[in-house]
């Protein structure tokens, strides 16, 4: 292996880690502001201009708070669970092309850590491993509400893995590759060649499943504040809780990237405009996560399971069959 390649990869990893850790913080700022405006409030205003430094204040608070490991918890598992959530979120980012390749100081940069030929499979798999964060954290916490949350988390994640996988199968059949870059090249023809137009059902299913995978509001029952406190996060404090938080928000950004690249043409032809377009699409999907949180109520766990197994999964299977028939 070349030394230059190694250095380049390490730099990319560090850049992605730094940018998305910061984005997770800024994401919380935007979430508070957007929710506040939708509820006719002001949101954070006191720290810095427009409350922008609230993120820094929260960061200082999280880093300096006491790291509490309560009695009766399984300490080793309790300590490692938040790391699993944050680490799997960032590991999934390895196969996502964040921007088209560009030239920097005469050196061509591909903004993807590893263009592996099983990109989507890898992302889905790693996101599936992310289940172990809430599951282990909740089970090790010695808290009834955390345990409930862990059980719900396992049920929701495993169920919606099915919908995610089946819904994405139809686009994979059309493109004939699992690499996200190949997906992007397939839709390089512009607006009309987006997979969204040929696979609207798969797009909707994947989008719905994304809400379950990230645990956002219509399907927020894993850490539902009003019934099970903070679920698996109840016993956590300080930076361990912060890692759960960073993992959740990084996941939201990454799943937004994945939806944009698979269904909405990604960065298109690779021009500057295409790159801006990709960022705008990601921004919209991230905004939509916040938007639904302000607008929609949560569903019950049994309704969520009903929706997954009795509605979404049959539709996904039918979608695959129809796609297959059309392609033959």
């Amino acid at each position: 292996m070349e030394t230059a390649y190694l250095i380049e990869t390490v730099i990319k990893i560090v850049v992605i880690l730094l940018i998305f850790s910061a984005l997770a913080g800024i994401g919380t700022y935007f979430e508070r502001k957007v929710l506040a405006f939708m509820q006719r409030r002001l949101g954070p205003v006191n720290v810095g201009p427009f409350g922008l430094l609230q993120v820094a204040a929260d960061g200082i608070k999280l880093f300096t708070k006491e790291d509490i490991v309560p009695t009766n918890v399984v300490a080793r598992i309790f300590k490692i669970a938040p790391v699993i959530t944050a680490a799997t979120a960032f590991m999934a980012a390895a196969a996502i092309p964040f921007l088209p390749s560009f030239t920097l100081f005469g050196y061509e940069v591909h903004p993807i850590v590893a263009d592996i030929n099983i990109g989507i499979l890898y992302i889905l798999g790693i996101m599936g491993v992310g289940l172990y964060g809430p599951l282990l954290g909740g089970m090790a916490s010695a808290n009834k509400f955390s345990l409930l949350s862990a059980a719900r988390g396992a049920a929701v994640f495993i169920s919606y893995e099915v919908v995610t996988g089946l819904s994405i199968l139809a686009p994979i059949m059309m493109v004939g590759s699992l690499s996200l870059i190949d997906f992007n090249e397939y839709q390089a023809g512009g607006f009309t060649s987006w997979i969204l137009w040929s696979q609207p059902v798969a797009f909707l299913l994947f989008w719905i499943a994304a809400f379950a995978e990230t645990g956002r509001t219509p399907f927020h029952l894993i850490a539902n504040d009003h019934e099970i406190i903070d679920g698996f996060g109840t016993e956590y404090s300080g930076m361990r809780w912060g890692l759960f938080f960073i993992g959740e928000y990084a996941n939201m950004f990454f799943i937004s990237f994945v939806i944009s690249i698979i269904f909405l043409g990604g960065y298109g032809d690779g021009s500057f405009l295409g790159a801006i377009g990709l960022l705008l699409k990601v921004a919209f999907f991230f905004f939509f996560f916040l938007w639904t949180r302000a607008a929609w109520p949560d569903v019950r766990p049994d309704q969520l399971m009903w929706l997954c197994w009795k509605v979404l999964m049959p539709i996904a299977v039918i979608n695959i069959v129809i796609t297959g028939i059309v392609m033959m």
Partner: protein
Amino acid sequence: MHNEHIEEHFNNRNVTELDSNYYMVDIADYPTDGWGKFKRVVKRSFRGELFVGLWVVLREMIKFDVHTIQYPAEKMPIGPRYRAVHEMKRLWESDAERCIGCGLCEKICISNCIRIDTKIDENSRKEVSEYSINLGRCIFCGYCAEVCPELAITHGGEYENASDQREHFIMFEDMLTPLDKMKAGTQLEFEGFGAITPHEDERVKKTPLAY
């Protein structure tokens, strides 16, 4: 004496009347069979109710009609009848204390938070020597202000009474209107329960002496 009858207009809240603003919500029967349930799901899924919710919150965001009151910097106006920390008023004519030390407020106080002690001063007048209100016990019911025959103890508008101990007392001197405020003529009368009503002077009749 001519008593002016004031007509008050209330909202029509009569549910039974036909012209009332109330109407029964049209609730469909709960579906019993599978086909009915399926139809309900389809109807709910494609009627676009979710988008109504999305539009409502987005509309509020665009209108940017923020209702936040940034509390320490901005405050809500409070009514003149608001019952917060007590005040002791002075007489307009002489700037002397209105309190005559009758002790009615101590008697009526239902949470036993007022303590008053009086003595006879050198002019053989009753004088308040000790007066304190335990704000940790006070429930701000307003009985003291209501019972006071001299309109001396009243409620003020100061509601920010945070303290590092619960048994926070206020003394007579702290409640008493400062003299410089009296000199400037800015003492505010309490308009709450027990206070004289406006235009009281015109309504006062002479005591009939010719029995």
